């Protein structure tokens, strides 16, 4: 294998045969053409970005390259020869390693065990050897992992590093990163971008799947844009070098949407806050353990019509705070008030009826029942309630009508409301959940990463909806790891770090200075300057 790699290194990326080729590949699923006659070549020494909206066929293409699915038409080639990747192990043997969008690690195994997973059963885990290789990787690519930790207890970012390390330990020639930055902090994404450049310098081909335009330009050497399963256009290294970021983004947007969409608006939303306090959290604490960070003494107040952003690096207690407010997590102390009424002891359902809504970020396991049709998922939190149930009897027509309305309003891409929600792409599931939480009589909505995994158009639409409901006088808690989003929407931004609120800043739209200040607080450097707001 080493010989082949050397030979390919001598060829310039532009004229090289390409380490993997995709030739006229088509893949159909019931009701959908996921990939439509796509031809691509991936070259060593390049970060090749596959860019597209949700449902553009990126993940299916990844599935084909990693041996999970086989194309219905067309074929793949390896080093110029026609090849078949009939199973994941065939793909691995061909030197292709994939880091999937959803973690492909066994949560109950240790890091070391996950690194050796897939080795022949008769071998002993080569602990010393792996520890030595990990030391190398730590030096070269700044990958640092606790080998004996239980994988499920690590953060998502660390889990992703395990998967990258695993690919490197296998001496892969091609590394596929599927939506790899979606769970990372901005710094984490930056590091990953630098890591990718180091990897391609060592001769790898990196295939980087994303829907973030700026990332595509910053980290990629070549960009292919997919649109509804088909290849919409490609930008080579020479072309990209001659462009500024703005020009490149304009070009990509033109390819993706077929129209000139302006830069995502970073205009600061005008405040619609009223005097009335909508939600008040006082000295709230929760129990933490090895898996879950506890909250310490959190106080926050939210006015009607106000959006309070919660910034922070993923996993610093944001989810626990959201769950504590929604009543899903037991408090050890503190109190929660909704419009002046003490709801500390209220159940999840009581809080929901009183108008406190929570949109989870865990859309697959907590937010939806994958095997149920979309229609039932839209009323999952209203089971037994009129108008969908009357005297305990389900009214399927009303539920279906409600679901169709929701599908229209939130432009969910689906064959129909009876399709099991688990068959939809992540972004479309998120739209259904968003619709569910916004329906009915909401007074305060807690959003946990509401636009995570959505495509540009839907991110814009979602943000507009969030702004709209604040405009209607609802209080909004917006948890996000996307600082642009928070700065565009929030009246105030509270920064969480280590299960505490490190500070609350007025979002006056001062741009770069404010961003740096928030960044410092996120890293835990600027402590307790403003304890409460």
């Amino acid at each position, binding site marked *: 294998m080493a010989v082949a790699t050397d030979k390919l290194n001598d060829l310039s990326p532009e004229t090289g045969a390409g380490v993997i080729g995709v030739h006229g590949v088509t893949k159909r699923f019931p009701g959908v053409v996921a990939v439509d006659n796509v031809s691509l070549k991936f070259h060593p020494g390049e970060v090749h970005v596959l860019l597209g909206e949700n449902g553009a066929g990126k993940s299916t293409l990844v*599935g084909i390259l990693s041996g999970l699915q086989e194309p219905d038409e067309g074929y793949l080639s390896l080093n110029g020869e026609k090849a078949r990747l009939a*199973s994941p*192990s065939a793909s691995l043997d061909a030197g292709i390693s994939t880091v999937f969008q959803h973690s*492909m690690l*066994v949560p109950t195994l240790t890091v070391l*065990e996950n690194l050796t*997973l*897939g080795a022949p059963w008769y071998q002993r885990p080569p602990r010393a050897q792996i520890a030595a290789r990990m030391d190398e990787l730590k030096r070269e690519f700044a990958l640092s992992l606790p080998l004996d930790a239980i994988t499920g207890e690590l953060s998502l970012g660390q889990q992703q590093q395990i998967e990258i390390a*695993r690919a490197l330990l296998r001496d892969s020639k091609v590394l596929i990163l599927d939506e790899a930055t979606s769970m990372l902090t901005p710094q984490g994404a930056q590091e990953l971008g630098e890591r990718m450049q180091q990897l391609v310098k060592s001769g790898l081909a990196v295939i980087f799947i994303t829907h973030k335009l700026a990332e595509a330009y910053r980290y990629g050497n070549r960009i292919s844009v997919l649109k509804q399963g088909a290849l919409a256009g490609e930008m080579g290294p020479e072309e990209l070098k001659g462009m500024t970021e703005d020009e490149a983004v304009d070009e990509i947007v033109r390819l993706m949407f077929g129209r000139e969409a302006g830069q995502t608006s970073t205009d600061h939303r005008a405040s619609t806050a009223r005097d009335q306090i909508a939600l008040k959290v006082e000295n709230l604490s929760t129990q933490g353990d090895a898996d879950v960070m506890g909250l310490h003494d959190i106080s926050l107040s939210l006015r009607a019509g106000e959006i309070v952003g919660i910034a922070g690096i993923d996993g610093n207690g944001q989810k626990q705070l959201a769950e504590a407010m929604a009543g899903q997590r037991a408090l050890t102390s503190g109190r929660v008030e909704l419009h002046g009424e003490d709801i500390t002891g209220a159940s999840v359902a009581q809080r929901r009826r009183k108008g406190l809504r929570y949109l989870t970020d865990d859309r697959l396991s907590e937010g939806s029942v994958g095997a149920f049709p979309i229609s039932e998922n839209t009323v999952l939190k209203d089971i037994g309630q009129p108008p969908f149930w009357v005297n305990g009897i389900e009214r399927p027509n009303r539920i279906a009508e409600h679901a169709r309305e929701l599908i229209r309003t939130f432009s969910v891409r689906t064959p129909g409301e009876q399709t099991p929600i*688990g068959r939809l792409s992540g972004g479309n599931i998120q739209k259904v959940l968003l619709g569910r939480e916004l329906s009915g009589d909401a007074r305060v909505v807690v959003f946990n990463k509401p636009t995570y995994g959505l495509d540009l158009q839907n991110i814009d639409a979602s943000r507009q909806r969030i702004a709209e409901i604040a405009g209607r006088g609802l209080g909004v808690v917006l948890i996000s790891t996307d600082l642009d989003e928070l700065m565009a929407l929030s009246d105030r931004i509270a920064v969480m770090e280590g299960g505490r609120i490190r500070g609350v800043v007025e979002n006056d739209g001062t741009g770069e200075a404010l961003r740096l200040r928030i960044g410092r607080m996120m890293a835990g450097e600027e402590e307790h300057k403003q304890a409460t707001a």
Partner: protein
Amino acid sequence: MGGLLTEAFLSSLFTGAIVAAIPMLLAGLGEQMSEKAGVLNIGIEGMMLMGAYMGFLVAFKTESLWLGFLGGILGGVLVAIVMAVLCVRLGLNQIVIGIGLTLGVEGLTALLHHFQFSRTYPRLPAPERLNIPGLTDLPVIGPSLFGRHLIVYLALIAVAVLAYLYRRTNLGMTLRAAGERPAALDVAGGNVLGIRVFATLFTGGMAGLGGAYLANIGAGLFIPFMTGGAGFIGIVLAMLARGRPLWVLIGSLIFGAALSMTTALQVAGSNIPTDVIQMLPFAAVMLVLVLFGRRAKLPSALGAAYERGAR
């Protein structure tokens, strides 16, 4: 009740406990492996019964207990092959197939036994025992703990071997991965179906051996339906043990003691009604389940067939 703790009572209690425990231990160890790999093997009762029948038949015809044990393992594996093909390869429902196999084997062995032996129940000669000098002569516990057939000690060694295997080897890790997140094992280049087939066949072999022990050593004869739920108790043991072979051993001894209490109490001439005594093992199952069952953690993908790329 004062005279209950006599030497005769304790001796028959210990002896009975071990005789009753070994089949459940073997079945529990087998079930534990297939549960680790994600296959809920309800057919284990049938595998055990087939093992008892084949084990007895071979031992009876060849007059060799060891060939009998081999026959028992083979019998269990035969049934397990059906399970592996239907549930692992074809992905059919594990519970339905498991129950079907158990019922089918119950009928099949009764029928075959009837053909071969009509209504007679021939006995095997008493098995030779491994006498450990000194220890076997100890009062009360001597004959019950140290004068057993070699297979008893092999079963105990299997506990240690399996514990090591689960903890320290790639095989153990692959098994756990197949039961916890098969997709992760698959994309890592492991063979999910292969390891599940292996685990299912291993369960069959262990259950068959347990059945052969039950017939050849425990009873010395084969009677249709003789396993009487020992395989199902193996499932309970595997569930309660949370992946630890040592806990299967402890659990099987507790259940074995409860079972042998039935005979031991009668030997001791207690005045507790027989009906109450015979209820003991099942009361023990329920008690243990209430006390420890709630916190038992089963593998995430247990009972779910694996299909690549399905979502």
